[in-house]
């Protein structure tokens, strides 16, 4: 099991059948986006058809798990029991993803040192045997 950053009391991910494969890949520490097999447009979160060409043919494409902070907030109120405060929620612009972003956390960085444009990389937190959640930490 990996280093832990958040307690077990955090809200679990919730997924419908379209989204389940993303979390299955996450459990293997693979960060994915969907790629349209018709027009190559990438998309995230997972959705049933391509919003550009409306094809329903899509494949899961691994992305490198590097990126930079697009925006962030430092949260001073707990949403779950036994949570360390404050904590950082950030929007990460993902490299080599076709310009996609995802919401995640920054870990291992002092909140006052967070800034937009900061380079980050994924760090997987194994919440249980079959659930891993991607967080991000500063690089360089």
């Amino acid at each position: 099991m990996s280093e832990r950053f958040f307690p077990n009391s955090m809200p679990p991910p919730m997924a419908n059948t379209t989204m389940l494969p993303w979390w299955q890949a996450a459990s293997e520490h693979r960060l994915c986006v969907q790629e349209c097999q018709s027009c190559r447009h990438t998309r995230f979160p997972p959705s049933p058809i391509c919003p550009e060409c409306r094809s329903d043919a899509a494949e899961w494409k691994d992305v490198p798990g590097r990126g930079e902070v697009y925006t962030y907030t430092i949260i001073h109120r707990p949403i779950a029991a036994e949570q360390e405060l404050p904590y950082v929620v950030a929007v990460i612009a993902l490299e080599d993803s076709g310009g996609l972003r995802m919401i995640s956390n920054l870990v291992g960085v002092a909140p006052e040192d967070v800034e937009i444009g900061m380079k980050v990389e994924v760090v997987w937190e194994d919440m249980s045997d079959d659930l891993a959640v991607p967080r991000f930490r500063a690089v360089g």
Partner: protein
Amino acid sequence: MSARKAHIVGVGESKYTRWGKIGDISEHALACQAIGRAVEDAGLSMNDVDGLASFAEDRNEAVFLAADLGLPTLRFGNMVWMPGGGGGCAAVANAAMAVETGQAEVVVVYRSLCQGQFFRFGTGGIDASVPGDLAPPTLVQTDSMMIASMGFSMPYGLLMAAAAYALPTRRHMHLYGTTYEQLGAIAVTFRDHASRNPRAVMGERPMTMDDYMAAPMIADPHRLFDCCLESDGACAVVVTTEERARDLAKGPVEILASEQGCPKGYAFGPFTNANISDDLYATGGTEEMAGRLWGKAGLGPKDVDVAQLYDHFTGCVVMLVEDYGFCARGEGGPFVESGALSVNGGSLPTNTHGGSLSEAYIHGLNHVVEGVRALRDESTSPVENAEVCLVTSAACVPSSAVLLGRK
């Protein structure tokens, strides 16, 4: 058509309190009370009402209200899909469409919120003070798209609206140099307006910029008073045709134009969607809609005498004044800091009731109520000779707006 042009002819509300303080009367009964007061204000009888409209998963279904209010018939029962605070003006717009097209004659738009009777917004029903079941969490499968849409924000602890809307606000600060003090100017101005409003929950709690800056940080850049209140209360507005409006108790207010919607790919907005296009991310997402609204009315920002802008968070107000063209993109901070929003000499007196920050949080339907009062000379912070009032629903979610005009 003109004889059927939609007008607002009555407004009403229950008492407003802090969240969880109304327990002696059900949320449904509170809706009945507000609807009754609005109908009475119009000089109408419940026997005249044949339509009910609300928004955003209202718990108080029109069919039960119609039964308990004794409506002779329910011809129009309508719910807007725009989430949370985005749909209040759209509910008014739908009521207007119903009366203008003859689907109904008198439609009451309502909102009732008693969070203490259900659960507190922004918690997901989780009580963080109680140590939880410490078993390792596992993936939860759901068939609900609404629940699934939260599945890429909640696991990261993004659940509280104050944190969600901090994300576009922080980006706005980064791009344009918007400051904490500029956000604070909004909170202080609306509190001043509330100080004259006996309905305002914070009416007797004056606030200076020092008070604002001293308040605890909730989700940076949002301090406590950047966040709207959490309230219990209900309000309602009555919409009917020009023909019916002519003979009623008070001067009717015309619905000059309305719009609702969201840009491509917007979904729930930045709360759950990190992939709003870069040119829209640090905006309210309502600029295109605002353009349609102005075009439909044949009016522009310079024609607005008073505004009621949805203020769930101060940063969202900065984005709204930019979206609606009251200043250029990126200049919302200096605009609000100049005192523009104050009834005391500002160029755009805004939230003359105190807004969601200081009157009450009734998902912005109270902003429509205040818009009507502002054009009837009934506001406690009056704007002399106001002819045109812009009312908007929330920024950073699919939204809606109405332009109101004095007859």
